[in-house]
């Protein structure tokens, strides 16, 4: 499985899908995050592999 981490929440998706599909499946708006793997940004068309941990950085701020 692939783990997505956004703040204190974790999501799991099946490997083999793109980052964009993984975000959509997890009901996360792609526009609201930047995805990183081992500290490096990755793009929406990247295929996620089994065992990977993707850290999502929230971009929305304000009040």
């Amino acid at each position, binding site marked *: 499985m692939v783990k997505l981490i956004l703040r204190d929440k974790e999501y799991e998706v099946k490997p083999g899908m793109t980052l964009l599909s993984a975000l959509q499946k997890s009901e996360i708006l792609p526009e*609201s995050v930047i995805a990183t793997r081992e500290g490096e940004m990755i793009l929406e068309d990247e295929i996620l592999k089994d065992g990977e941990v993707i850290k999502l950085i*929230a971009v929305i*701020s*304000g*009040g």
Partner: protein
Amino acid sequence: MRQHKLALCKEHYLEWVPEQTDRFIKKYNMFTRDEKILVAVSGGKDSLGLWDILVRLGYQADGLYLGLGIDGGIDYSHESQRLTEKFANEHNLKLHIVDIEKEYRQSIPVLSQMTHRGHGKPCAVCGLTKRHEMNRIARDLGYDVLATGHNLDDEAAVLFGNTLSWSGEYLLRQGPVLPAGDGLARKVKPLCRFYEREMTAYCLVRGIEYIYEECPFAEGSQSIYYKELLNQLETTRPGAKLTFYLRFLEARKSGELFVEKDMEQAHLHPCPNCGQPTSAPDLCSFCRMIEKVNSVPAS
């Protein structure tokens, strides 16, 4: 960056962002290299990113940090001040720090409680205080211009809210530059055409450490809700946020939005206490708030 149909490597991205910023600074006549700029820095990605970009571009940019006294269980203000000071020290930049509690006897959350403004949340008092203090300090210290890190998502969310309520006066005032007036410093938003996502990416690639935690009072705020709605639109229609904002600026400039351009300026007068312009009949909103606070005996 789907809205620009552009993909860049790290190196070129770090060149592209300052180049575009400089283009916007010139396009909207924000300031020149001869002018002194005061950058309002909160420790967040946008303001630290802006300060970094302006310095890289060779502008004379000093920082202003306002200590708001917000804890929220995460030591929010202390941590944001620490990161701002760290950035200033690492880049050898001049940073002015103003502690609101020291200046006005109370922190923002306490000011909010005492004045009953903002329906139980301190955001209204925070916004009012920040606008007042940023202007006061820019004016008192002789800066030519005050720069804030508002990005396109901030601007689009404000525009969306003001459009929903057809707040004509606010719509007429919104733009990349708010010109100087009697007692009002010129205010500029050099990042107004960058997506929030682009500024986050800039800080990540550039290695700028910023406060990631959200202000504890921002949760559930209207502006964040509007941003989420606009991001839903952006996901299905890339470029929608940019088009929304840019077409608004064009419409405002061409005069097709509203007729009376100087409506707001017409009835502004200096506050008898602080001298800043206000449309209130006597003291400005900020001074009224402080007067109210000072009338309460210290516990």
